């Protein structure tokens, strides 16, 4: 057992040196790891210029800090409206809306499947009446709004447009982001209505409508976040998200749009997990791949089509219910990675989110974490401070290569929609998440407070409670709206929407007519089902 004969300096701890996604990491990186052909001008360039590896702006955070955009939504439209006003009064310029699960699934609050879920994880919206309250007193010409909604995104967006009409705000002045990324729903988040192909038709209708009528609106936030939360590796997150982006561009082109008309309005959304350098390398590789894809594959000329703007959220799945204050440290490391990765906006998770929706004091610590990084740590003083590190550049190149290999496989299958239909990304993610869980269970990957440094007798953490009164009040309001609307006119509008679905007319104006007459999210969604069908997943274990 003695290692007296072995010089101390050459011994290593008997563990695998790998990233959280299991990429092997060497003891030391040197110039040799970059390979003989590595060229700074080709691989890195200058910030604000192709291929944007070091950042999309020439001044980055010296010009403008990232937007601190905390996602919020709970209870009734009144509750969330009050929170919006509070945030705006305290200097926030953008809103980010979380909807409840029934709304995300295109179900009304009075549907049998909605029982127990109304207003629980976000705000409940059934009709324009709820949106009028949600955005009551908020000047939509001056506030940008992000809405996290996918399957019924077009319906909710039409309600937002109808609120703007009532405020006499021209649609061309509206600014904001619709998540509207249906492909990652089939892959990861699992909140869908129709099968992929008709869903893509609604998205291209929306892109076409916005390029004419709402030109400042970000039409899709192509999201890797949920893919990672479902258990993917960093490379899978990057590859599947970019493959989704490629599918949206192809759909736009197929619908007759020109690439530079809609691509500048596409943005991205990534996860920032525990492995610091892996995340930074992933974000740098993401910008470089997208720049090449847009310029070389799709011939985009506008630099805004080639630049990947992205939002980042720290990894909810990395938070532990045990010793929850430890999560503050995790979130700090993850947020720092997002900043060094060059994010445009950031949401930091609260330490109590493995237990419940966050309390106000936990949300405050999360926001303060961003402010400390921005204003105390000094990391914003210079652009891409890790650029040129042998390790970071080698890891960026490795992640880029691995992601491109996945994208090539997906292209060979006929693109992401075909890959989803055969369950490819779903199976890859399920395998990766099971592999990781086994590593955690065996202790090969450490989770502090969970499989190492545990203790019994923890103090209880205060959590946020949402009462049942929200559901009762929402049901009462929905019944009242249904009783006072012009039913005959709504039926005609819904029939016209259904009729339009079987033609190639743009559906958005038909949806707008229905929501103006207080059609519900479920009524509009179901009107398209006879033509579009519904989606059922074949579960992959």
């Amino acid at each position, binding site marked *: 057992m003695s290692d007296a004969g072995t010089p101390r300096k050459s011994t290593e701890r008997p563990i695998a040196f790998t990233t959280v996604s299991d990429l092997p990491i060497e003891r030391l990186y040197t110039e040799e790891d970059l390979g003989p052909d590595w060229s700074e001008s080709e691989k890195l360039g200058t910030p604000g210029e192709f291929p944007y590896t070091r950042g999309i702006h020439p001044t980055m955070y010296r010009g403008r800090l990232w937007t601190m955009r905390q996602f919020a939504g709970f209870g009734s439209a009144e509750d969330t409206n009050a929170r919006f006003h509070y945030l705006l009064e305290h200097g926030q310029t953008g809103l980010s809306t979380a909807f409840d699960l029934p709304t995300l699934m295109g179900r009304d609050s009075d549907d*049998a*499947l*909605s029982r*127990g879920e109304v207003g*629980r994880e976000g705000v409940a919206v059934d009709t324009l009446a709820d949106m009028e309250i949600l955005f009551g007193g908020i000047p939509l010409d001056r506030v940008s709004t992000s809405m996290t909604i996918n399957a019924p995104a077009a319906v909710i967006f039409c309600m937002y447009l109808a609120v703007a009409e009532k405020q006499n705000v021209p649609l061309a002045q509206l600014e904001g982001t619709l998540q509207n990324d249906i492909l990652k729903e089939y892959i990861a988040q*699992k*909140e869908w209505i129709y099968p992929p192909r008709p869903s893509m038709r609604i998205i291209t209708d929306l892109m076409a409508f916005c390029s004419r009528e709402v030109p400042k609106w970000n039409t899709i936030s192509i999201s890797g976040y949920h893919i990672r939360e479902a258990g993917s590796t960093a490379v899978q997150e990057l590859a599947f998200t970019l493959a989704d982006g490629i599918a949206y561009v192809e759909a736009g082109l197929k619908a007759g749009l020109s690439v530079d008309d809609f691509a500048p309005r596409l943005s991205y959304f990534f996860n920032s997990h525990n492995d610091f350098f892996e995340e930074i390398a992933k974000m740098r590789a993401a910008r470089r791949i997208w720049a090449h894809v847009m310029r070389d594959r799709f011939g985009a000329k506008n630099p805004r089509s080639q630049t990947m703007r992205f939002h980042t959220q720290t990894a909810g799945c990395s938070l532990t219910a045990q010793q929850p204050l430890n999560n503050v440290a995790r979130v700090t490391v993850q947020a720092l990675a997002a900043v060094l990765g060059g994010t445009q906006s950031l949401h930091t998770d609260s330490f109590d989110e493995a237990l419940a929706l966050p309390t106000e004091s936990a949300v405050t610590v999360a926001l303060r974490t961003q402010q400390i990084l921005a204003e105390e740590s000094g990391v914003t003083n210079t652009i891409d401070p890790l650029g040129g590190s042998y390790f970071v550049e080698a890891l960026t190149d490795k992640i880029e290569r691995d992601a491109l290999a996945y994208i090539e496989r997906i292209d060979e299958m006929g693109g992401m929609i075909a890959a989803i239909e055969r369950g490819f990304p779903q199976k890859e993610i399920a395998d990766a*998440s099971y592999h990781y869980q086994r590593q955690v269970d065996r202790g090969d990957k450490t989770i502090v407070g969970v499989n190492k440094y545990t203790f019994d007798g923890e103090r209880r953490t205060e959590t946020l409670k949402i009462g049942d009164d929200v559901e009762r009040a929402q049901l009462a309001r929905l019944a009242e709206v249904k009783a006072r609307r012009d039913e005959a006119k709504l039926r005609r509008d819904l029939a016209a929407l259904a009729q339009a679905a079987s033609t190639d007319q743009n559906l958005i104006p038909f949806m707008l007519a229905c929501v103006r007459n207080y059609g519900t999210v479920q009524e509009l969604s179901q009107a398209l089902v006879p033509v579009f069908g519904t989606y059922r997943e074949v579960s992959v274990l």
Partner: protein
Amino acid sequence: MTRAGEGHVSEERKLRLLVGKVGLDGHDRGAKIIARALRDAGFEVIYTGLHQTPEMVVATAIQEDVDAVSLSILSGAHNYLFPRVIELLREKGAQDIAVFGGGIVPDEDIESLKQAGVKEIFTPGATTESVIAWVRANIHPRPLD
């Protein structure tokens, strides 16, 4: 796989478990990992897939003659959905099918859910081994009809 007592009781059979996702919640990472881990541990596992109502889960549990139902709920609707499944099992005379589960569930809710008849709740960070060990110790084959 061996289980205490397995060798000498000839009519004993493999445990049959239903892993269910009930409600609109699409977070199925945990449910799928648990289903796979229980299967790899030698149990017979049926996974319901997503977006099931309590009625659908209970109908499947009875039809498949399972010994226990394991529900995964991350939507905050656990205080409605767990008791509803237990209530429906009782109504159908299948109260001997045990119900346990996991998800984002605060401590104070765990106590009231146990009072409502949920056998155990696992929260984020629980290992698959701890779930398997708990199942071996606490879930037993129901007598065959």
